[in-house]
């Protein structure tokens, strides 16, 4: 008997006879009495909450509009001072039209060691969750491969508001495609491993800037 058969047989012996199928029982046995959203907010208030919660976990939040975006990015990159900035393949070219650092397209820097020498990365996102202060990346062309937002020490993420903002985790999951590799980001990398106290800045980007573009 294979281990697969053995494990499955043990499960069947352990739980005994079941009168209905898993699918039938699931509908009946799993209540969804919890809230889809916590509290009632206008769209503008939801965006404000996102900004507040992002900042609470030490993301640096900036708000601007389409027209000003290239100049804000120019300023943020100039302040941080990297020579190079990594760009996913589908990033709208006008975003970095005013920026000084040399743009490196992903794929041009293929190895992790090469990525480690890049100063910053600019991406879009799939959506943002207001209640938890989370941005979610799904590997779309304006976000690129997972590694490009991981190895560089400075990540600038552009969120289009209000269309990319959802209030809650349930709303986020229903809009995301599970077949895509997802990365949920809530603030810069952190650890609670020393005396259960939160310290920002371990392996992921130590600076996370989120730009909310109206």
């Amino acid at each position, binding site marked *: 008997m294979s281990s697969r058969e053995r494990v499955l047989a*043990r499960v069947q012996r*352990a*739980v005994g006879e079941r009168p209905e199928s898993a699918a039938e029982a699931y509908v009946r046995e799993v209540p969804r009495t919890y809230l889809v959203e916590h509290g009632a907010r206008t769209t503008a208030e939801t965006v404000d909450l996102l900004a507040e919660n992002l900042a609470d976990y030490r993301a640096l939040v900036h708000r601007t509009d389409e027209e000003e975006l290239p100049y804000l990015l120019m300023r943020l990159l100039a302040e941080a001072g990297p020579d190079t900035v990594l760009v996913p393949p589908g990033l709208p070219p006008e975003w970095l039209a005013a920026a000084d650092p040399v743009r490196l397209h992903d794929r041009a820097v293929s190895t992790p060691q090469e990525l480690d020498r890049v100063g910053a990365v600019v991406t879009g996102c799939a959506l943002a969750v207001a209640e938890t202060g989370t941005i979610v990346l799904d*590997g779309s062309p304006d976000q690129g491969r997972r590694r490009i937002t991981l190895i560089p020490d400075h990540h600038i993420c552009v969120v289009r508001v209000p269309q990319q903002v959802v209030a809650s985790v349930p709303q986020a999951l229903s809009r995301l495609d599970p077949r895509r*590799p997802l990365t*949920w980001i809530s603030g810069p990398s952190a650890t609670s491993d020393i*005396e259960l106290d939160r310290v920002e800045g*371990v392996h*992921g980007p130590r600076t996370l800037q989120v730009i909310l573009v109206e």
Partner: protein
Amino acid sequence: MSGTFVGMPAFPAAAREAVGDATLRANLRHATHTIRDKRARAVAELDDWAALREAGRRIKDHTLRHLDTYLVQLEESVTAAGGTVHWAADADEANAIVTELVRATGEREVVKVKSMATQEIGLNEALEEAGIRAYETDLAELIVQLGKDRPSHILVPAIHRNRGEIGAIFRREMAGWGRPAPEGLTDSPAELAEAARLHLREKFLRAKVGISGANFMVAETGTLVVLESEGNGRMCLTLPETLISVVGIEKVVPTWRDLEVFLQTLPRSSTAERMNPYTSTWTGTTDGDGPKTFHLVLLDNGRTDTLADEVGRQALRCIRCSACLNVCPVYERAGGHAYGSVYPGPIGAILSPQLRGMGSEIDRSLPFASSLCGACYEVCPVAIDIPEVLVHLRERVAEGGEVVRNGARITVRPAKGHAAERAAMRAAAWAFRRPGVLRTGQRLASGTRRLHPRRLPGPGRAWSASRELPEVPRESFRDWWQRTQGGPAEGSTK
């Protein structure tokens, strides 16, 4: 489970030693109290916490009841998404599978994301024997690995270490494992985190094989989910060419939507955050992004045996948040090592004896490592009634009975050392069935109450060593009732 814990003394002996360690007690007290208050605030933010907790409980119970169906569905989904699924009935099988998979890549080192399942099976030791070096990359796991120590907490395995001790370990040990600690490294947490970042980065960048566990597996889609904070998880899950995930079979949930419950309850319960910094989900392999090869090892190792126990099976709902450790008065004082398992604290006291069986002294003592105060049940985000299972397992230890081990039904004999307890309980049952005997006994006890010792003699000594004997009242309730018919007890003292 892991060979690391073989030969552990039973809980009372290990706890006595731990309680005498003033530094350990101070470290634990500081850490658990810090997180306790934060958790309460994070949970209070959600008006529907009770409904989320109930939904979590129901999803897990439902899944366990149909575990075979969901495991087969998961296997199909993962396979369809480009992954390969392996089944391991026990630790040895899982270790053999993983070792063989790593060997097949030709690599001699792997990077690991913190994983309870791989600790449970002693994977690092098994790989070491095969000449493969496993690097732990979670900060606390790194502290444990560098300090040649054992984990003492589910979420923060180095919780028993304070910053001064961690700094000393880094300065002393890092050079032996790779990049040395920076010159002049102090004990500030930010500098310690920076030292870990520098030490591990070269390992991440060159790693070809990553090993992980998972917090959840979605049967419907074949998606695995890892919640973490530091980014070491993302490194291990996305940079290597080969990813091997070892996951307990109870981690499966039916649908993608089910995650909406646990992604709200797990972060708030474990690190007391609205959301942990990083959550990664992946479904098989993705062209051009992340590992080219993905293996999922489904681990039983005592889980189906636990499932066979109708009371004890609720322990399998556990999502490893560690909230129960942080509120436990026993854990706070005894620390994690005394539990002799990678699963310490209240959940460990019910999980370890069920996963491992009650063959060892430590596992027979664990159900007694509790005051039954119930704080663990109250904070549990999937409503595991830990006190209920503790009492159930105590009965199993004292009375023996039928259990399932390695899939076979066996009868365990009553454990030694509980003879006096059994005799006392039998005597009590006999007396309670005979009102006349009970009344005589109570009057006798009341009449002699000034003569009662503070400690029991003979076989009762161990029991009363850690308990105050209750004071016997001057009059029993029944006598008082018959005398007064429940009227005002004039002149009576308590």
